[in-house]
């Protein structure tokens, strides 16, 4: 990783809106292997919806099995009238509004589940370039947000700061109590951009700074 440590000092002050500097190792992004692996590693796993659906399905099937066995033995656990187990189903036509709305709801839930499964989802981490192909490095989005906000708050003149990490950019919202804010925005931008360059994300993130003045 000797070529890896791109020095933060390499970056000069960016013209606002100018293109972000490309760290040397971001070349890895142009190769599909590391890119695909990195994307996969931090893609949402959809465990929560999966576990929920599995639990509901298991519970329903267990209850159904218990009811069916008890009915087979002649003593249904939940006393559905034995002769017409189907109860109101025998008087509801296929074209009834109840049927249609229930069927539509079921189909809709099915569609939602398919979409949850198929949509890749927003990666939980920002992937950093790594010197080694077998290593995938990522900073969790929340952690990056917090650390960049702390960093911005350390800039002289900044009262408070919040950061948001998007797909291609990081937005820092800073407040200041200074009357003369000349150069402050650029300072924050440079500080944050330097840190990002040192982290060396696999695909470059551009920094936007919004500065607001606060009275008091």
């Amino acid at each position, binding site marked *: *990783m000797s070529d890896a*440590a791109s020095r*933060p000092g390499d970056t000069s002050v960016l013209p606002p809106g100018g293109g972000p500097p490309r760290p040397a190792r971001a070349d890895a992004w142009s190769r599909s292997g590391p890119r695909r692996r990195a994307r*996969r*590693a*931090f*893609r949402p796993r*959809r*465990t929560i*919806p*999966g*576990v929920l*659906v*599995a*639990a509901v*399905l*298991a519970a329903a*099937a*267990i209850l*159904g*099995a218990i009811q*069916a066995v008890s009915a*087979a033995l002649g003593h249904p656990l939940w006393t559905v009238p034995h002769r017409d187990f*189907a109860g109101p*189903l*025998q008087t*509801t*036509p*296929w*074209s009834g509004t109840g*049927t*249609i709305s229930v*069927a*539509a709801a*079921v*189909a*809709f*839930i*099915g*569609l*939602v*589940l*398919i979409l*949850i*499964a198929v949509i890749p989802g927003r990666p939980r*981490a920002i992937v*950093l370039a*790594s010197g*080694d192909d*077998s*290593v*995938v490095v*990522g*900073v969790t989005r929340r*952690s990056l947000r917090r*650390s960049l906000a*702390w960093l911005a708050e*350390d800039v002289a003149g900044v009262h408070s700061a919040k950061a948001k990490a998007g797909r291609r950019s990081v937005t820092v919202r800073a407040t200041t109590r200074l009357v003369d804010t000349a150069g402050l925005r650029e300072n924050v931008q440079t500080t944050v951009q330097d*840190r990002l360059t040192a982290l*060396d994300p696999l695909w470059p993130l551009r920094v936007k700074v919004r500065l607001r003045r606060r009275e008091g």
Partner: protein
Amino acid sequence: MTRHTAHVSRTGLVIIGLILLLGGGAVLARSLRAAPSVLGSSHAPLVTHQQAGYPAQNGWVWWAVAAACAIIALLALWWLAAQTGTRTVRRLPLEPDRIQGATVLRADAATGAIADELESYPSIRSADAALQGSPRAPGLRLSVTAENRPDPAGARAFIETEALPHLRTALERDTIPTVLRLQFSRAFDRHLA
């Protein structure tokens, strides 16, 4: 690695989603008279009198329902277990040569060693390591919390050029697919910097 559980979750969701979508869609199609010749009249009740009386005359129906429910329940429980399992490797075969005698390494010895090594680095607050997947070709999941220092490259260089190669040597492997999750905590010397 845990990509496996992602696969299991997503595949299961697609299957259940398809069943619900197709089932709901078929009922809707009959309700809205999409194809009466195939699906039947939309004015008929959901369950005819004849169908309602069927289980009372045929005792096996309830048993069949019970068996189907049991199979579904087992599949659902298996799916549940496959999603929640972390697939952590506990024992690693080092010397696969059965004739000479097999050498097995406890995985937590290896992961504990790399976690300790990482935590010995000044700006790394805490580290957590786990080997996952198959014992023959395990993957490493590293979770490292580093201090929010101006130059995070040092900690990363240490991980990639020192700690990981040591683990590879210890496990006698050329590569170990690694996922490193980096987090930052507030630095102690934040106001001194």
